């Protein structure tokens, strides 16, 4: 469905090129939910933006490929890509309120998308907008339509954002920490909504999160990221049964409370800042299993089991 291959992204700052994604590869199976997991700063959001080709001006895709239904997105002219966005892949963001344009009422943003992508007339678009708002579980859609984003709560904004994303009838939905900025109770509601919509519409979802609890709850597959690399990919069951990478296991031990904003990991140290990735396995300075080979060379992907891949020199030591 969505196939990301060896995606490399770098920042151009102060005349220097600082690599941020070092060859990210994964694939989404149609109609499933895949989780992209990792601590803050490990490149999850960057991966999503690169897929959407919405990287900030300072970042650029150096190499790699993104295919949607076999069509390479990176080579598309901007005009075509705009058509893919929304209709092909839609995205919802971490900060729901900041993602809505503050100076337009909900109706204007929603009907514009409907008219543009689905060619609806003004009146039909308005009716559809109302239906969509109802579909994402907003009470009193007519009132919401007239409202400006600052008049809505964070949860409501996220629902509006979801409605906007669904308005284009996308095949793939990228959800970038959709619940992180919300209250705990609201988080659950949004998760429920996403799950319901996914099943109902048969969406393929890439869920970006640092919350393994959430992953366990709704994902089919998981990809764990660290310092711009996918360090482990597996099905949810496989991962939770037998996580191979020491980093993944660290994450899991830390998963005491679901949804805590700043994740107090059981891993000592911090994610290395951009441009200061240590040589070899980027995780080795923090890894309790690290040996001399870890600092010498970056580990190649190794197959743990069918569909379970890990990049660690010493995963066997960990699993044993």
């Amino acid at each position, binding site marked *: 469905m969505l196939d990301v291959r060896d995606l490399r992204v770098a920042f151009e700052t102060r005349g220097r090129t600082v690599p941020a994604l070092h060859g990210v590869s994964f694939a989404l199976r149609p109609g499933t939910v895949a989780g992209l997991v990792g601590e803050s700063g490990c490149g999850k959001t960057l991966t999503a*933006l690169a897929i*959407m080709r*919405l990287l*900030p*001006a300072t970042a650029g895709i150096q190499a790699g490929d993104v295919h949607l239904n076999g069509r390479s997105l990176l080579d598309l002219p*901007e*005009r075509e890509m*705009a*058509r*893919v*966005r*929304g*209709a092909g892949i*839609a*995205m919802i*963001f971490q*900060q729901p309120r*900041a*993602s*809505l*344009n*503050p*100076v*337009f*009422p909900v109706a204007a*943003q929603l009907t*514009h*998308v409907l008219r*543009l*992508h689905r060619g609806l007339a003004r009146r039909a678009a308005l009716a559809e907008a109302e239906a969509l708002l109802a579909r994402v579980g907003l009470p009193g859609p007519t009132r919401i339509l007239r409202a*400006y984003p*600052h*008049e809505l709560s964070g949860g409501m904004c996220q629902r509006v*954002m979801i409605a*906007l*994303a669904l*308005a*284009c009838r996308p095949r793939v939905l990228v959800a970038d920490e959709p619940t992180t900025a919300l209250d705990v109770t609201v988080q659950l509601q949004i998760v429920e909504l996403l799950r319901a919509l996914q099943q109902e519409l048969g969406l393929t979802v890439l869920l970006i999160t640092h919350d393994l609890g959430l992953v366990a709850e709704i994902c089919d597959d998981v990809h764990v990221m660290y310092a711009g690399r996918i360090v482990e990919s597996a099905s949810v069951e496989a991962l939770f049964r037998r996580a191979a990478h020491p980093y993944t296991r660290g994450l899991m031990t830390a998963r005491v409370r679901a949804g805590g904003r700043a994740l107090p990991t059981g891993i000592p140290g911090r994610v290395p800042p951009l441009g200061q990735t240590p040589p070899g396995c980027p995780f080795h300075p923090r890894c309790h299993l690290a040996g001399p080979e870890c600092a010498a060379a970056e580990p190649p992907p190794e197959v743990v089991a069918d569909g379970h891949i890990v990049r660690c020199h010493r995963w066997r030591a960990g699993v044993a």
Partner: protein
Amino acid sequence: MTLLTFVLTRVLPGSPIDEIAGPMATSQQRQALMRHYGLDRPLWTQYVAYLGGLARGDLGTSFVTSRPVAADLASFFPATMELTTWAMLLAVVVGVPLGVWSAVHRGTWIDHATRVLAVAGLALPVFWVSLVLIYLCFYVWHLVPPPIGRLPALVTPPPPVTGWMVVDSALARNWAVLGDAARQLILPVAVLALAAVAPLARVARTSMLDVLGAEHIRATRSLGIPWRRVVWTYALRNAMLPVLTMLAIVYGYLLGGSVLVETLFAWPGMGRYAFNAISGNDYPAAQGFILYATVVYLVIFIVVDVCSAILDPRIRT
């Protein structure tokens, strides 16, 4: 405020009486005139009298034009207002897209070129540009009518309704005069706009850059809205607030009357009036002008507040 203007006009060197009385006046005649204009009384009495007049809406009588200052202001203000407003509209139409364009193409040669162009417009001394343009466009190429004021010499102005020649002649359905008035406006409007483009473009650029980096712009793009629409519909309106404030500053500045442009184009506006008042020690006129400028300043900022509220719903609540 009134006190300040009062004091400020009184510190001008010289006295209006010397100009009025003429060279041969004796000191008694001069004193008689001082009495006539109430200038012989102590300053604070003059000030109280001035305030009293103000309360009745009386700004005093100009020494130079011999007319009530209020009437003078009423006849000079529309000239400046018309000139300035057209210039501002032109500057907005040119400057804002230029700034947006520059922001969209940030860091490219387009960005650099537009910035240099805008700054160049600002950097040229306005009187110098005016003269060169008059020389070329009127004198050499005959593209525009002579810089002789608001209407050609022998054209009868339309009955004043708004004081705007273009509007009044349209109201009077006098299309010939409308054309005359419009053509008289071309060059001075262009010159004023030239200087106003740069600040507008600069603010539009910075503010657009801020907005284009915002989350919601990324979100809008993620919905597959074409880039052009994102910039010109979604981002522009967000970026308009700072532009509006700059617009008000520039507009207020220009409404104070551009002495230089009005001099060169024989435009009977506020700047000329103020210049004559100051250089002729015409206290009531100078005071009246300053009062006017203050009111204009206040009104513009109220209008900007209202417009900001219309543009940005967050300000409304």
